[in-house]
């Protein structure tokens, strides 16, 4: 039971560090210093401590609650070293769908803001979801099929059984590549950053979010980064034998899309869909074909 409290907490702390890492990577690539160590934390505290805050209605508020809550719940489905949480009760498919709850919550919350920028942002975010989820489920299918289980605990056990040679990335390199590609889109980083797009729709979903609303989104971002990194680690990098290797893997995985993000502009919406349906999806299907025949 204590696991269920510790897992989201760990996810949040790791997520904070990932946000910091992302901003530091950006700063390095842009030849500057970047934010101080606890900056993500200060941001969140500051935003929650705002004294007047603007709400557009109950759904606006509940949307944020759903966004945070969905991730808090979802991270308990991802086994950490020494902690299995609810991984036995949920499994991979439930996890994938659980991770859609925050998007839904956010979409509802933004919808109530009555701001066309936000609505366009959500429409783009859902379109992006349609795009990246297809390679994502191909990858999930491939892994689940290969290990003959949708239980993450069993998948990790199978990977850890034989060291690196039995890791998902060694067994299914094509799927691993497709997964990495899909993760870039899942995190909404350039060149797939279509739904924040400040110059077009003024940060889209975030446009009416201030104070604790934005703070909630910042927390959600922490969880999102963690969830993406952890999921990839669990599927392809053998999960965590211990905390040290787990952290190294998770951070290394997340660092890749972050570094790419600062070097590209964003695509148009339909280009994102086309690209993601073309390359990672096809590579993923090819990978599955190799697995099955």
């Amino acid at each position, binding site marked *: 039971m204590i696991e269920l409290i510790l897992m989201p907490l760990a996810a949040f702390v790791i997520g904070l560090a990932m946000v910091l890492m992302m901003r530091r990577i950006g700063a390095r690539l842009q030849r500057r210093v*970047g934010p101080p160590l606890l900056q993500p934390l200060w941001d969140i505290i500051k935003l929650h401590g705002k*004294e007047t805050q603007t709400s557009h*209605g109950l759904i606006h508020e509940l949307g944020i609650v759903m966004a945070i809550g969905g991730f808090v719940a979802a991270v308990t489905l991802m086994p950490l070293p020494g902690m299995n949480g609810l991984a036995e009760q949920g499994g991979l498919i439930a996890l994938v769908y659980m991770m859609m709850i925050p998007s839904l919550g956010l979409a509802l919350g933004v919808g109530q803001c009555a701001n066309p920028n936000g609505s366009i942002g959500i429409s783009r975010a859902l379109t992006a979801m349609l795009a990246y989820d297809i390679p994502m489920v191909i990858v999930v299918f491939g892994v689940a099929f290969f290990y003959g289980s949708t239980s993450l605990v069993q998948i990790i056990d199978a990977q850890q059984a034989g060291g690196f040679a039995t890791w998902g990335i060694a067994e299914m390199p094509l799927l691993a590549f497709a997964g990495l590609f899909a993760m870039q889109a899942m995190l909404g980083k350039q060149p797939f950053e279509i739904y924040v797009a400040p110059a077009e729709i003024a940060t889209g979903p975030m446009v009416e979010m*201030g*104070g604790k609303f934005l703070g909630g989104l910042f927390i959600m971002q922490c969880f999102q980064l963690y969830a993406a990194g952890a999921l990839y680690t669990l599927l392809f990098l053998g999960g965590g034998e211990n905390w040290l290797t787990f952290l190294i893997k998770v951070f290394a995985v997340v660092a890749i899309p972050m570094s790419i993000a600062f070097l590209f502009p964003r695509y148009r919406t339909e280009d994102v869909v086309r690209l993601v349906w073309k390359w990672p999806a096809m590579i993923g299907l090819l990978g599955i074909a190799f697995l099955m025949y």
Partner: protein
Amino acid sequence: MTELIKTPRTGETLPVKAGKRTNPLANVFDELVRFAQSRSLFMLHYCTGCGAIELPPSMTSRFDMERLGIQPMVSPRQADILLVTGYVSVKTLKRIILTYEQMGSPKYVIGICSCTVNGGMYWQSYATAKKLNDYMPVDIYIAGCMPRPEAVIAGLRELMENIRQGKADSWKDYYRHYDHYLGHQQRLFGETWQTPTDVIAEARHYGLFGPDTLGTHTALLEQHQRPLEALEMKVDIPELMARR
């Protein structure tokens, strides 16, 4: 003529009691929150005048504001600092007031460039407002035409220091002396001036009501305004209502 920093008050004002903290976190970690507020400032990405040209240098690689925890934000909801960079034309001033009212408190206004102080070199122009603190409380002026990035950052640092010490609370002035600010706005924009934000209701809601919140100008506002109340969620089931 009015003095620079002091806001004119109508009559004697009582020192406003520290309002009841609605925020348990702030109760316990008051200091921490203030520190966090000073270390994390989101400034609004609004280039109101020519001083904005020195903001990109202060934001980007050479001076890098982000190392102080300052980053640009797009919409007023997200922002803490309103940088009024230079002269404000009357048309812009309306938007600045709208934007200012849309920001969440604590919010800080920085008047950059001499034009915000006293009209600057456009003092005889019919189109620009002269004195920003007539229309909204200003925390810090950074004079110069235009101030260098170093000056901007120095000003921001001073603001950070003020926030940390809890001295930067001029945003409360806007609620407590709303009548004063509204009066100046009405003088410039006409009697029918109304922003969508209901400042008086906000002041009541957050306990920031002061003796000078209401006055002759707000009375005028009430005469002219179309009340824009929030659309409260109503469970208005006809049958149940009728039974009551």
